[in-house]
């Protein structure tokens, strides 16, 4: 049945660092590239060279401008894919059981063989993480690269999600967020990682790290001029400097 797993040993997921994401879309495109030949293959593109191109993407980059009273405006790049929620409504609403959360690692997947394409799960997901493939008639979504992270045909070091290994800025991390001893868990603790829309009660696994506020590391706001500022004379300056430069 499409109920959620009773207990979750592992919570595999992503941590996205908004402090260093430059909004380059690399993760989104690499995701598409891996996955169009992966578990949910193909990720169709409709009208690819026409007037209204659209297609299936598991990961998307938004950009916001955030204005605060104290710090003025900030541009924030904001990648978003499935958050592999612990209490995933997309699973419980599914009438066929095609949408499910894996017991062994918490990955939320759609079974392409049994999905009837009713789209209800997409309506239940607050984050817009589900992608209906018009052409295939089924729902698709981020697989957390389930066919890469365990893949014995590639070297162990490559067994991380495509979006993570490709990110040029290193803004994406991957690991078991259910394990309090993991680096990724500690990272979230240290950097005050947070949930998106906690009020939706989905208990997302993926976490976001807020931009760091670097508090002032500098002693002075201005330099101390070595000569009288108001009636500056090159010669006086030169004299002082000449001594110093020796």
């Amino acid at each position, binding site marked *: 049945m499409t109920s959620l797993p009773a207990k979750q040993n592992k919570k595999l997921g992503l941590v996205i660092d908004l402090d260093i994401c430059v909004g380059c879309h690399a993760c989104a495109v690499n995701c598409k590239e891996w996955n169009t030949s992966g578990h949910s293959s193909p990720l169709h593109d409709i009208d690819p060279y026409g007037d209204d191109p*659209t297609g299936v993407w598991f990961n998307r980059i938004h950009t916001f401008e955030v204005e*605060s009273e104290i710090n003025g405006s900030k*541009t924030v790049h904001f990648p978003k894919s499935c958050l592999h929620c612990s209490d995933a409504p997309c699973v419980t609403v599914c*009438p066929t059981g*095609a949408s499910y959360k894996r017991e062994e690692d918490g990955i939320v997947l759609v079974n392409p063989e049994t*999905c009837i394409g009713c789209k209800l799960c997409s309506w*239940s997901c607050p*984050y817009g993480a589900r992608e209906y493939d018009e052409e295939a008639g089924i729902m698709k979504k981020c697989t957390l690269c389930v066919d890469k992270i365990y893949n014995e045909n590639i070297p162990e070091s490559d067994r991380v999600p495509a979006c993570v290994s490709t990110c040029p800025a290193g803004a994406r991390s991957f690991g078991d967020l259910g394990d309090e001893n993991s680096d990724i868990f500690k990272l979230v603790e240290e950097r005050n990682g947070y949930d998106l829309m906690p009020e939706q009660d989905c208990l997302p696994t993926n976490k976001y790290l807020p931009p760091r506020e670097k508090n002032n590391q500098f002693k002075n706001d201005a330099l101390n001029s070595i000569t009288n500022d108001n009636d500056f004379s090159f010669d006086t300056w030169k004299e002082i400097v000449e001594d110093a430069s020796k």
Partner: protein
Amino acid sequence: MIMIFLLILGKKLLKMHPSKSIIFFTVMSGTGYGIIICLSFLALIAEINFNYGFKLSLILISFLFITLGLLSSTLHLGHPERAWRSFSQWRSSWLSREGLAAVLTYIPLMLFYLLWFLEMDIFKYFLYSASILSVITIYCTGQMYASLKTVPAWNNVYVTPIYLINGLSIGSLSIYCLTRFYESEIQHLYQFTLLSLALCLMLKIIYWFHIRTKSTSSINTAIGLGKDNKVSSFEGPHTGRNFLTTEMINKIKKEKANFLRLCFIILSCILPIYMIVQEATLIIDAFILKLSFFITLVFALIGMLIERYLFFIQAKHVVSLYYGENKV
């Protein structure tokens, strides 16, 4: 004039998302189920043995409405041939329950049709059970929407009752119009129909007031960078459309929505009530009477389609927060 206007409107509606089939399905099958439920109420308190023509029309209309509705909803699936799979998750999924209930309804329903037609008295038991299952089906449909937290306009106690009362009101109106057509009378139908139409109107108005209050989700919780910061969307992930913007982010202007609301109120509530109440003073000629009630029913159905369209188009999904909306 009105017809042309409606035609244009209809055409426009068809072009628009949300999925026409869902709108069509919920209205049609709701009407069909409504007829059955209404009949069972009437059967409880009165005799419902009419002439064959009348019966046949009721049977045909309710059956067709229910079936067309179900078919259309099945055909709008990405994989209709797999629809049977949707029975498996009745423990957790309202959609699964709805499907199951809808299919189950057919068993007593078909028996009721047969026995009623054959004038065998036990038809009542099948009518009652079909009616209970119809209520359950509509209830499931309603719950399916009402349980979606992502759409605050649906996630409330009014949605399911509205689904029920909409079905009932248009169902009883259908029967009422048929009685005009067949020039017969059913006891209490007059009061029943008026009551359900009035209730329908009332509930909807309350609902509209209710959904003006906003939800707990906002752009601030959606991206999570400070409660009081002003956040605006600078660039979306695509300059064109994508699945989400097409499926879930529909925009309708306030004025247009208000106009459509008015259309619904008039077409589906005021007009039928007016027709029913003022029937005696209005109509002299039998043919015109039949025609005008036929038109009333068609208008009421159109009104219902409009209501359902609004239900979907005005339901802001929280995902729109990522696409330029500040609150839902």
